């Protein structure tokens, strides 16, 4: 097409489409700093063939154009893309980014644990009829907070967008898809709610206290939701003469789920867990998405047939323990699992199962690309690996018209690398989110400083069996703050410190048998667990193990 005419057409198009292009700010200002052009770059559009040398133009937060014959507009800030490759911004399909630590579940009836008389259901969220952990009405969009170290770590490796979801409980709540930049939660949210999230960790000290109970509870609540919807419909049709049904936010939140309008993400990894999830989804006609999915290749046929996508964790299992002669040899099952987990993605692709990558609560995000490489080495075509970070999550999460490929009109989330994305020696040169470049911090030297922020379940052993307490930590650099709650009392931690290599120390005041005692914790973070010793003044010392709350094992 002759140049003049194409430009005319483009201009006409721009004029006609202009009113329909959403603006990112209400002032509708278009200033020069909103326009960028990355020139002479290799462009992996994902939606089409790779453009070996071309230009991407960003304007007003969107991709304005991308192609071999696209020129940088005069008002654009030009980035020389020589030697660079432009990918759509990578999507991490399952995280807890931007979420504060959840408030600890209040312990029922004086820390009774198993022995408590059936307690009145402790009220968690506002006006909920259900205990914390069974509140499907919880929405992460209410608690998203911008900024923070974890978001920076994710961006540093090229992640522009993440599905963020609560991690605790059974009905864990409703997730949101966020861009990893923005000053306000509203600026971050791309879509909310995205899905209902379900975990299978039983509650402590109250029903359901076992995995069997979890299934029974899920079923009962879904049946109750069906009835709730029906009774509300009948009442609303003609309230006269009918006794008003109680409103119930938890059941109301489940109605879109049981009607298949909102997908359900279930955190399941082993073959039998995935099978149980598929069975439950069939029983209640749910739109299931599997998250974790380590053994999903073994159920690939059924996943494909039931049209269930997988948010595949790239937190690949690896051996973390040293070799000690006194230790038992590891079970064959574990050895096989670690090797086979690398092959899952390749097998899913062959079987036609849709999947997307997620970081699976990796503490060290640099492992993400290392593991992506492993997965490619073990049978996943590299092009599929790119798709699993871009267009496939966009499709699975319902945002394919906005994200996942480099096409005009989509949100300008771009990951620009020097070298191929999965190459060992490549590095992320630029990241654009919503059309603006983000600051990439240099990788921290030495051992990675994994963040301790979050909710931890701490099993303390003082010689009389384990006691579980909840610990909430916030880590800002070297500073650590937080609070403890549970059967040994509640309180703020003090004298807290974090050292490189994951050494954690803090003290807290406990209430032990009516007396206040000070306890000092000293432990080490490794592989998402903190282990160490606890010394209580005036009592026998003990040990503790802390795992992140809501962690799949």
């Amino acid at each position, binding site marked *: 097409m002759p140049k003049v005419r194409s430009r005319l057409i483009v201009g006409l198009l721009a004029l006609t489409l202009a009113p329909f292009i959403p603006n990112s700010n209400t002032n509708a200002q278009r200033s020069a700093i909103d326009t960028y052009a990355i020139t002479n770059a290799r462009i992996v559009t994902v939606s089409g063939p790779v453009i070996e040398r071309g230009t991407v133009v960003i304007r007003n937060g969107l991709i304005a154009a991308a192609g071999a014959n696209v020129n940088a507009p005069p008002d654009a800030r030009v980035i020389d893309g020589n030697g660079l490759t432009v990918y759509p911004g990578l999507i991490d399909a399952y995280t807890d980014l931007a979420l504060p630590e959840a408030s600890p579940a209040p312990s029922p009836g004086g820390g009774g644990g198993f022995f408590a008389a059936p307690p009145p259901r402790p009220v968690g969220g506002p006006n909920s009829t259900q205990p914390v952990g069974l509140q499907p009405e919880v929405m992460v969009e209410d608690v998203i907070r911008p900024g923070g170290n974890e978001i920076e770590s994710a961006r540093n490796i090229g992640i522009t967008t993440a599905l963020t979801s609560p991690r605790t409980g059974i009905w864990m709540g409703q997730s949101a898809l966020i861009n990893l930049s923005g000053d306000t939660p509203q600026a971050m949210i791309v879509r909310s709610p995205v899905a209902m999230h379900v975990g299978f960790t039983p509650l402590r000290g109250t029903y359901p206290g076992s995995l069997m109970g979890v299934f029974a509870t899920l079923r009962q609540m879904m049946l109750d939701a069906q009835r709730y919807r029906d009774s509300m419909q009948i009442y609303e049709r003609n309230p006269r003469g009918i006794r008003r049904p109680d409103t119930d936010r938890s059941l109301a939140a489940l109605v879109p789920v049981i009607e298949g309008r909102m997908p359900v993400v279930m955190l399941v990894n082993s073959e039998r867990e995935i099978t149980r999830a598929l069975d439950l989804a069939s029983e209640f006609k749910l739109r299931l998405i599997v998250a974790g999915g380590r053994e999903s290749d073994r159920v690939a046929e059924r996943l494909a047939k039931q049209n269930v996508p997988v948010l595949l964790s790239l937190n690949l299992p690896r051996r973390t323990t040293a070799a*000690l*002669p*006194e*230790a*038992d*040899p590891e*079970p*064959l*099952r574990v050895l096989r699992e670690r090797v086979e987990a690398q092959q899952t993605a390749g097998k899913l692709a062959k079987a036609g199962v849709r999947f997307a990558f997620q970081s699976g609560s990796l503490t060290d995000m640099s492992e993400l690309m290392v593991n992506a490489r492993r997965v490619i080495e073990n049978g996943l075509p590299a092009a599929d690996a790119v798709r699993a970070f871009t267009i496939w999550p966009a499709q699975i999460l319902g945002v394919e018209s906005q994200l996942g490929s480099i096409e005009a009109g989509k949100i300008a989330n771009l990951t620009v690398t020097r070298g191929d994305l999965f190459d060992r020696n490549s590095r992320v040169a630029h990241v654009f989110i919503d059309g603006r470049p983000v600051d990439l911090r240099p990788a921290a030297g030495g051992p990675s400083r994994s963040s301790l922020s979050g909710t931890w379940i701490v099993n303390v*052993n*003082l*010689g*009389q*069996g384990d006691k579980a307490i909840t610990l909430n930590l916030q880590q800002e650099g070297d500073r650590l703050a937080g609070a403890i709650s549970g059967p040994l009392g509640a309180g703020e931690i003090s004298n807290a410190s974090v050292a490189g290599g994951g050494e954690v120390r803090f003290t807290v005041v406990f209430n032990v048998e009516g007396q206040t005692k000070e306890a000092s914790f000293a432990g080490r973070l490794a592989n998402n667990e903190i*282990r160490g010793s606890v010394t209580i003044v005036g009592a*026998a*010392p*003990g*040990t503790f*193990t802390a795992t992140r709350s809501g962690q799949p094992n």
Partner: protein
Amino acid sequence: MIKALLVVFLSAASAFAQQIGNPTMQQGVIPPRGTFAIRNARIVTVSGADIENGTIVIRDGKIEAVGANVTVPAGAQTIDGTGLSVYPGMIDAGTNMGLVEVPQGANGTVDTSEVGDLNPNAKAIIAVNPHSAHIAVTRVEGITNTLTAPTGGLISGQASLINLIGTAPKEMAVVPQAALVINYPRIGGGGGGFGGFQQPANLSETLTANERQLEQIRKMLRDAEAYGRAQDAYAKDRSVPRPDRNVVLEPLVPYVRGEQPVIFRADREAEIRGAVRFAEEMKLKPIILGGNDAWKVASLLREKNVPVILTGIFSLPSREDDAYDVLYEQAAKLQQAGVRYCISTGDAGAEVRNLAQYAGMAAAFGLSKADAVKAVTLYPAQILNVADRLGSIEVGKMANLVVTDGDLLEIRTSIKYLLIDGRPVVLTSRHTELNDAFKNRK
């Protein structure tokens, strides 16, 4: 069926017999020794060849004669052994027999484990309950002896070898203080969080904690050694300052001098190696109790001549990848490797009566039938240094004899007669009594 034979058996004391038929009565009256002859039976001597058709003469608690052509003394009470077999009474070397009646929910009946880690002076024989229902229940299945050991702590106490007959501990004791019992610090988890020490979760911490515990044991043993020397010195020479007596260290002296065996409870390979090493260092005479991994260290055990009391024939293999029969096969492997061993139920009391089945299972998986019988008769006697008195049918040994209508180890075999210490034992128990009470309830 057994009641009918009572009269024949005790013709000289029939009124007596009716009285001590009742298990409760048996608790107060010990049958007297006498002169008996078992005639025309197949005699499984264990120490030598079987005697297809022989006679055994028992007098005053001992075996007086054994053979194909033995003269029966006048006045002997005879048992017609036609079609029957005679075996030595079985010995279970790994029990808490008599120390516990009901382990769960009746703590008053539990005397297995004293408070504290170092209790060498806790002597099992003191607490053995001769009236425990477990005793009769066990012996009617052909087990005549048990080694009863305390549990708990690091040094649990001293085990006793007892006859399962007697109205008072003194009457039961064969060797009142037969062995010191030490729990070699464990690597495997579990065992509850009792006692002074915490349960570290990871292996390195466990190994460190174990070292500390070993150090505690070491120190006490060294103190005992020093104590023994001091006492000896004073005994020889009164001018030496008189050392105070110490009830805790005193019992340790024969053990630290290697005069008596020390039992180490250990199952895992590292624990067994550690126990053997420790015993060598401290110059003790070790016996391993448990021994699930013993076959893995067979050459070491053979080299150091350390015997093993196997209690895990009926345990589930602890590792996922273990062969399904790895524990069934242990005895056969040790036998082949030339390691001394015996088979035990490892049970507190209620299951000791099934000892024969443990041996039988070992025979199903590689052990010869003859060795399986030895594993519950002569081998435990040898390991416990009482082979001069027990474990086989030989002249001069204690008359602990079981008369059966078939293979001792088979479950379908019945026990017809039982002698312990040359005393006839009535084959009733709490269980036969309850059976009699309810079997005809209409």
